[in-house]
């Protein structure tokens, strides 16, 4: 076992540890946060910090573990691909949930500092939309 392998394994284990901690924080957040949007925020912590990061860590551990032989590259590749899929699917899902909830208006947006999406939806003409540069999440 070379020094590089040990470094890889330690980094991977630290990442898995951070992931476990993030999952705990996300679970507490889902229990404690008062409304839908905040709970959704906690849930996305669970998908990115609690699933994406530990999978990268698992890939590092597998790549550094010589005892697995050739198969470690299969395991590392599988973990990386799964991490990539979670990275693109998780945010898209939470975005769809948040956008759908916002458009149906069943949950009040609070605590609120600024709500660009609401401002966009209340503006009827396309001219005004062009003036603000269509920075909201409206479908085009």
């Amino acid at each position, binding site marked *: 076992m070379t020094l590089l392998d040990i470094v890889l394994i330690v980094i991977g284990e630290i990442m898995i540890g951070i992931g476990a901690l993030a999952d705990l924080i996300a679970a507490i957040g889902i229990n404690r946060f008062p409304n839908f949007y905040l709970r959704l925020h906690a849930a996305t912590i669970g998908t990115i910090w609690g699933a994406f990061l530990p999978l990268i860590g698992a890939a590092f551990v597998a790549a550094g573990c010589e005892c697995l032989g050739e198969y470690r590259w299969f395991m590392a590749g599988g973990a990386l691909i799964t991490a990539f*899929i979670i990275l*693109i*699917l998780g*945010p*898209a899902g939470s*975005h*769809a949930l948040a*956008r*759908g909830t916002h458009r149906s208006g069943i949950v009040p947006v609070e605590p609120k500092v600024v709500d660009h999406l609401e401002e966009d939806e209340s503006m009827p003409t396309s001219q005004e939309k062009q003036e603000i540069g269509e920075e909201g*999440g*409206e*479908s*085009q």
Partner: protein
Amino acid sequence: MKHWIGICVLILTILAISFVVAANINVLLPSTNVRTLAEIYLKYTYYPWDKYFTAMSPEACTSIVWDFRGLDTVFETMVFYLAIIGAIALARGVPLKPPKEIKGEPGLSLIVKTVTKIAPVLIIAVAGSIALHGHLTPGGGFQGGATAAVAPVLILVVFSQFYLLKRGVNKNSMLLLRSIGLTGIGITAFAAVLIGLATGHYAFVLQNQPKPLAPNISLPAFVGGQLISGSLWFFNFFEFLAVAAGFTIVFLLITLPEKLAETKEEKRAAEGGEK
């Protein structure tokens, strides 16, 4: 205060269950002694030294499902397709066509659509590997088909049903695919008999490898050096087509907008009521 009582009870329960499991680990673990039937199955799933009893597939589940008890699985397949035929019969006469004019842009936002352009490709690739490796690794035709049917569901929700219908994924094309799958399962089941009739030997329905009463007829276990386990690969492939198409039909019918589902008589009645 009640909070803490609940949490304490939860923690104590978890600790108690862990203690019980840890103390009785020898009783709770599955025993190493295998019953005779399981022993026979485990021995003969891949056992090229005794051609008369093996299914030539290292996957015990698939060899049991499509070889050792193949007739049962044919009946199971029949039950599943009768259910789908029932769903199609309920929706007969319902026009499954996209309207000529669609107001605005249907479906979810651009972000979700972009991701959904990537995901179904991955889903169908995984489903294909589950189905086509069904005789080597856990999985099989039904599992692969059910996985493949997730891709049209995703497109249905994200892009709207009309997106699929416009691209030819409609009731008729899926019925065609399903019929191809079912015909393939039937032909594979009778393949040994047909070969036997052509060559003048005894053979059985659903026969895979040679049997004591039909020693001359068998389906090839290897093709080009690749293990395909005789009939198992073909059963898995055709079941994959049939299940994926069948589920897609059901999902198309479930997500049909109610206004489009009106028959001509109902539309006339609704218009007459308004006048």
